[in-house]
């Protein structure tokens, strides 16, 4: 499932994937894969991303039931 909330928040802050990756200490590919929904980050990385984007876990990683895909 694509993480559009993360992507929109990053774009809102005019931050590139590379910049976000540098801030949280991962590669740009990892950020791309999280946004594409192809990699499930650990809670530790989720928290680091939230701090870098000045937001909360709920805002970026919580999915409502109707949006959930099996």
């Amino acid at each position, binding site marked *: 499932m694509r993480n559009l909330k993360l992507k929109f928040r990053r774009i809102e802050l005019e931050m590139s994937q590379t910049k976000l990756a540098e801030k949280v*200490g*991962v*590669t740009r*590919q*990892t950020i791309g*894969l999280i946004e594409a929904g192809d*990699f499930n*980050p*650990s809670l*530790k*990385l989720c928290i680091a991303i939230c701090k870098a984007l000045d937001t909360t876990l709920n805002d970026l990683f919580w999915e409502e039931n109707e949006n959930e895909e099996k």
Partner: protein
Amino acid sequence: MRKSKNNLDERQEQMLLRIEHNGCWIAFWGLVAVIIIQRVVLDFDSGNIAGELIVFMMLALYIAVGCIRRGIWDRRLRPDTASNRIVSLTAALITGILRFAYMIKNFPHMILNAIAAGMIAAAVAFAVCFAVLQFSAVLFRKKQAKMEEEPPENGE
């Protein structure tokens, strides 16, 4: 000694572990294939394949001990007598067929002897495999019971 910094992020670490996991199983089954080919097809004696046997046994022992120590048995099989019997019968069947093939290749005119050798090898393989599995299952259950009794660690 100071540990050098890990250059990988958690996704790359997971990918590397998956690659290493696949590499481990390629090595495991590759060794099985090499040992069978050298012993049955090329007719090498045990001395000539000692290196492969030692590496294979070390690998198998490491995986078995590592799993039992951490309270892991198998993804699909259960540590019970019925499952152990099926696994042992499968091992016995393969061993019997390989022994029969080896005998037929070297003594083509002695079919009855080949059948007897195959059956004896199968029976021995079944007994050894079943005993080892049952013993391992006992160790596994003991380890699991011990882990259940351990109090949860604070802050972990």
